[in-house]
């Protein structure tokens, strides 16, 4: 799977409005990383396209895809609900509300600073999760049902705020539409450096809890009888998966379906053991989103589609097919 991801990344960097030969891509990448000194032999335009434009974007797509898929697998396992995804408990609407506020401030009040949208989105997502969590908490425990309910309530409320802001701002808030659809256009190195540490650390951290997730599938009480600190594991997993999602959303907008579909597809292939499910979801999610982004760039070139539209176009039919085919296994 890892070689597939590497080939995917290099191929994805080669493909675009300007086709870069495969070997050229490899040389530029190796040169950029300092492992090969081709030096001035490389055409300036090629290095610009490959190194400055495409590579960071493809890497970001891979990281975001991995993070969303992994967070999705964790949420599905944690909530023991096959319909859960990284956005279930209000992370998305929090991030969207944050981004809307940022764009509103810029458009209506002219207040702007660099990276304003991702930072606001990140803050919004964290606030939303904190609020959902405190709503769902009953005497130190966080029952799954109240968590889902609180997520739905907070999401609806935040959606209303977004709509209200859009009404006030009118035409000026077109950017929010593109952001809500999710996209990786014009994402370069600063975005990658902003998000990569969280995405990498979070993903590795989640993998440590595979065993807890497995045993928690038996039910919370049964897991306790097997020596698992269920409430503690739940809090840690919720916090880390939400952070991961918030980071992904803040740099790429709302890319739906990746976190829902990829863990399902992988579960069909590898079975429910989270020790393989989590890393496999991360790899497949990375590969999936890189290709989805390639499609987003090239399908209507030179126009760009939001990648969220591609994932929804691929994801929704796949999910319907899955529902029909695997009715039995969907019944948890």
């Amino acid at each position, binding site marked *: 799977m890892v070689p597939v991801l590497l080939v995917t990344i290099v191929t994805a960097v080669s493909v675009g409005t300007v086709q870069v030969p495969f070997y050229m891509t490899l040389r530029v990448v190796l040169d950029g990383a300092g492992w090969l000194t081709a030096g001035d032999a490389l055409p300036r335009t090629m290095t610009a396209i490959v190194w400055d434009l495409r590579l960071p974007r493809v890497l970001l797509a891979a990281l975001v895809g991995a993070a969303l898929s992994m967070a999705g697998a964790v949420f599905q396992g944690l909530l023991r609900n096959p319909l859960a995804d990284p956005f279930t408990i209000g992370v998305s609407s929090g991030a969207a509300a944050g981004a809307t506020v940022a764009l509103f401030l810029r458009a209506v009040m002219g207040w702007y600073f660099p990276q304003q949208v991702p930072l606001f989105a990140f803050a919004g997502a964290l606030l939303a999760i904190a609020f959902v969590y405190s709503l769902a908490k009953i005497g130190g425990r966080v029952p799954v049902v109240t968590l889902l309910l609180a997520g739905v309530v907070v999401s609806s409320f935040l959606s209303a705020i977004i709509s209200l802001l859009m009404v006030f701002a009118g035409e000026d808030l077109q950017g929010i539409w593109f952001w809500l659809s999710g996209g990786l256009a014009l994402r370069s190195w600063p975005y990658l450096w902003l998000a990569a540490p969280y995405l990498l650390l979070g993903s590795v951290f989640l993998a440590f809890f595979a065993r807890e997730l497995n045993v928690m599938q*038996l039910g919370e*009480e*049964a897991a*306790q009888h097997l*020596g698992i600190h269920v409430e503690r594991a739940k809090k840690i997993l919720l916090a880390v998966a939400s952070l991961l999602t918030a980071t992904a959303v803040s740099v790429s907008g709302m890319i739906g379906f990746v976190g829902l579909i990829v863990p399902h597809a992988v579960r069909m292939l590898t079975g429910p053991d989270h020790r393989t499910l989590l890393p496999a979801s991360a790899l497949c999610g990375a590969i999936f989103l890189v290709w989805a982004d390639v499609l987003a760039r090239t399908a209507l070139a030179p126009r760009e589609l939001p990648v969220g539209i591609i994932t929804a176009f691929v994801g929704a039919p796949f999910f319907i097919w899955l529902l029909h085919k695997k009715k*039995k296994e969907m019944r*948890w």
Partner: protein
Amino acid sequence: MFQVKDLRFSYGSRTVLDGLAFAVEKGSFTGIIGPNGSGKTTLLRLLTGVLAPQGGEIWLDNQQLRSYSRLGLARQMAVVSQEADGGVLFTVEELVGMGRTPFIGRFGRESADDRQIVAESLELTGCLHLRERVVGELSGGERQRVAIARALAQRPAILFLDEPTTHLDIGYQQEILDLVKKLQVSRGMTVLAVLHDLNLAAYYADTLLLLHDGKVEAAGTPAEVVTADNLAAAYRTRVAVTPHPVLNTPTVAFLPAAYGASGLSGRAVQDGISSTAPLGQTPTQSPQPRQEPVSI
């Protein structure tokens, strides 16, 4: 093994356990019986450390139960609960293998010993032929046996069973309880089982604990506890208690209401002789309304 003193617990304003006191001997089979809502399952959840007592104390091997860590408890006790295990996407072998969780480190894999114990648990419960099957495809009875196999894979010193035979037909009920009894005797395992069926409780348990209204109504050997008077007080029912034809342990026979018409109504019958306990009469403390008949 267990010493329970003045144990109290309520869910909100509803008092479930109101000052329980009893002791459980190491290596014994204790049956917990009592009408619906008498606090049997709550007691089990307190003894397994899932709930914390709101009053009183639980001692396990001369240490307060609350001083044990979660993992420490998991290495000593296993629980088969009323609800079936989740995790329906796992295979039987994977699920039973989870019973080894308390003995394997975070990144450890199952050792040959662990696999041996899992195979043995599968065999003891008659689940060996199911090992490759996905749990979600099993029948209720098979899932119950898998749950018991998972508990046995923990190699527990204490086994808790909450109505372990609910989904099983009479053949498997006997088989499972025979197995539990065998392990109790051969391994010196302490067994605490909530049992709905009074006869099975009387046949298999060494000691019975009859709960009623959050208190211990009666405790002792089956012969001491399963009497018409005790059952009448706890269950508000008409029963006759006779010796088992072979074992001589008490056996409960249900008396239908029509029996009242024959003129012998309202009498508990013990060992074939009418006793004086008035039956069918509402006890002074009104117990929880019965939702289903006592199975006998």
